[in-house]
């Protein structure tokens, strides 16, 4: 006890600096997560009622919509992470080159990141208008391709939802990659050039390995953000048609606030938290190897 007190006194200043952040994190992050678990094992109405144990977690196994939402969300994450990272990286490679209009293009790529998500969702929904007069369908008509019911067709609705998500994340990833590319060792690149390495060889053997920390960070952030995707999915399709675009987050919202089953909604949220945590840990482990 005396030892702890002594250490506390010794590290008083750093502790005082860290304390506000610790309090904030505990109150606004740790406590809600614990509370979520507490709610998920109780019957919740106007008050937190009787203890129901793992009932909600067992129910989850027979909830077909949850499994469909999990599958949809995973497809969204995979496609958004892959295409968002690849396109973001190539956009960064292009926009670190010196050319006229470089800043304009950087701004254009970054605009979706600073635009409100719900507005982006509404605009894309308008572009996907299913009639022949819809913006995308008008373009298709020039190519003699019949009009598509982008958000109403169960076979393409999910992919139609994914496109704006990729489009939006490219600018964000691009900025991180530009910062990493700026830090490249120019001497190394120059030496490679003198040795006769072409652009592709420089990319594979020097640029990508030198920016792997940025790639790792982008991958982790993209997975974290995309697994929780809610606003675009809710505004554009709300799970339609027939839950083919349902995501875990929209299903949590519907269960909690539409079906008013807070307890089950909390169980779903706990599962989402565990999925994200597991993937993040695995990702970090894999990347550190």
């Amino acid at each position, binding site marked *: 006890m005396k030892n702890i007190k002594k250490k506390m006194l010794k590290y008083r200043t750093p502790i005082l600096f860290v304390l506000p952040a610790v309090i904030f994190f505990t109150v606004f992050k740790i406590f809600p997560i614990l509370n979520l678990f507490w709610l998920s094992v109780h019957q919740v109405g106007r008050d937190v009622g009787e203890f129901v144990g793992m009932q909600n977690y067992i129910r989850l196994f027979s909830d077909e919509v949850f499994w469909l939402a999990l599958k949809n969300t995973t497809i969204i994450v995979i496609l958004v992470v892959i295409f968002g990272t690849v396109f973001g990286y190539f956009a960064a490679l292009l926009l670190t080159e010196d050319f006229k209009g470089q800043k304009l293009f950087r701004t254009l790529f970054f605009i979706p990141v600073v635009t409100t998500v719900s507005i982006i969702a509404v605009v894309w929904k308008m572009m996907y208008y299913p009639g022949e007069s819809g913006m995308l369908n008008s373009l298709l008509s020039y190519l003699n391709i019949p009009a598509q*019911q982008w958000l*109403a067709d169960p076979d393409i609705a999910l992919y139609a939802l994914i496109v704006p998500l990729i489009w939006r994340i490219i600018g964000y990833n691009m900025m991180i990659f530009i910062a990493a590319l700026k830090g490249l060792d120019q001497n190394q690149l120059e030496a490679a050039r003198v040795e006769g390495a072409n652009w592709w060889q420089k990319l594979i053997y020097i640029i990508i390995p030198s920016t792997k920390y940025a790639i790792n960070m982008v991958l982790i952030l993209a997975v974290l953000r995309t697994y929780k995707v809610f606003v675009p999915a809710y505004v554009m*399709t*709300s799970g*339609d048609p027939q839950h083919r675009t349902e995501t875990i987050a929209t299903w949590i919202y519907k269960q909690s*606030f539409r*079906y008013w089953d807070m307890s089950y909604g909390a169980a779903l949220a706990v599962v989402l938290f565990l999925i994200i945590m597991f993937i993040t840990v695995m990702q970090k482990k894999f990347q550190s190897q």
Partner: protein
Amino acid sequence: MAKKLTSIIFFVLVFFFLSTSVMAQTTIEIWHRGDMAYNEAYTQIGERFNEKNPEIEVNFVLYPQLEDKLITAGMSDSLPDAWILDNVTTGKWVTNDFVRSVNRDQFSDQIMDVAWKTAQAGDGKYYAIPWSVQGMAMYYRKDWLDNLGLEFPENWEQLINVTQKFTNADPDQDGEDNTYGIGLYGASTRGYGYWTLQNFLWQAGGSLIKNTGNGKFISNLDTDATVRALEFLHDLVYKYEVVPPGVSAAQSTEVYSSFQNGLVGMVFHANYKNSAYTNALGRENVGAAIMPAGSAGSFGLGEGENIYINSNTEKYDEIIKLAQFMTTTDIQKFGMQITPSNPVRLSVRKDIDIAKVTNNPLDKPFQEAFLNNKIKYPENIPDYYPIKIIAAELMQEVFLAEEAPNYEQLIEEYDQKINEELENQGVLAE
């Protein structure tokens, strides 16, 4: 000196407490949804009430996502004294003990029975005060009918004929093939497809659920009427091709705008788009009428808003006083006339001629539908929302099937889903 000072402080304190107690006002907090225009309208009503009842102040607070807010407020014991919300939510509040019952005899006998029914729970008590009602009727393009020499359809057969002409005979006379007959709701989101199914199902003589008495219910989907309604709606989309593409994802905004932009010649919903439609299309070009009749008649879905009183409020009497005031002829008329957003769509009172108050003939058919019992409300089960979603999913599945689906099989599947939901809510009849 000290004694003198003490006496002065004493008198000042006595005066302060006396004056505050004399001037004290009770403040009622009422939450409502909508936008700032609605909030301004409600605030005006609150000010009028306060003029007549200076001891009671009313604070109307706007929450666009009111239902979500109420649920979280209920869990944290921070509900307002009262709130104004869709009457279809009555069962939800009663089941979760959010609201206190009211004595119907304390209110005007001119309030329509059908409006009171929306405030009634399974135990026969009333748990809200009707504030505004609205029922669905059909908006149509008068100019398109005139251009083609047609009359508004009175039944389903005529509806097919008129919608086909609207789709194929260039009703807007612009020389282009750019119109459709009717806009239908097909999204399962928030139960939009339910609007379509419920209206046509009643017109065909069916219903989603049946009240078997003693607070028990059973699914009523497995009937010929359901097949008739589903077949008719599927035919409108795929056989007659009179509905714009994307019907299976169509929500209210798409359907409203398809009418407002001149894409379709008919849409059905309550009377809340009069000014938008007449401004966009011209007052003389827009008409409204009671829904075309199916084999069982012409019925439309009823909706509306009630005033719910928090079961824990200490200001119950004051809220009753306010609700009495809000259901007087004057305030009901005032509520319909406020622009740009009128919180009273149609008065809950039967002694008000709505078209005269709003000076808009478009409102007339909507009121007639109520007065002629053409408006029906869903059954009072504890929570109607899941039933709405099941119905909307059925509707969407039919709209997604290009080839006519196996209706019997589909109905059996959804009939079972409804019964499972009724069982979950503890109201399934044996």
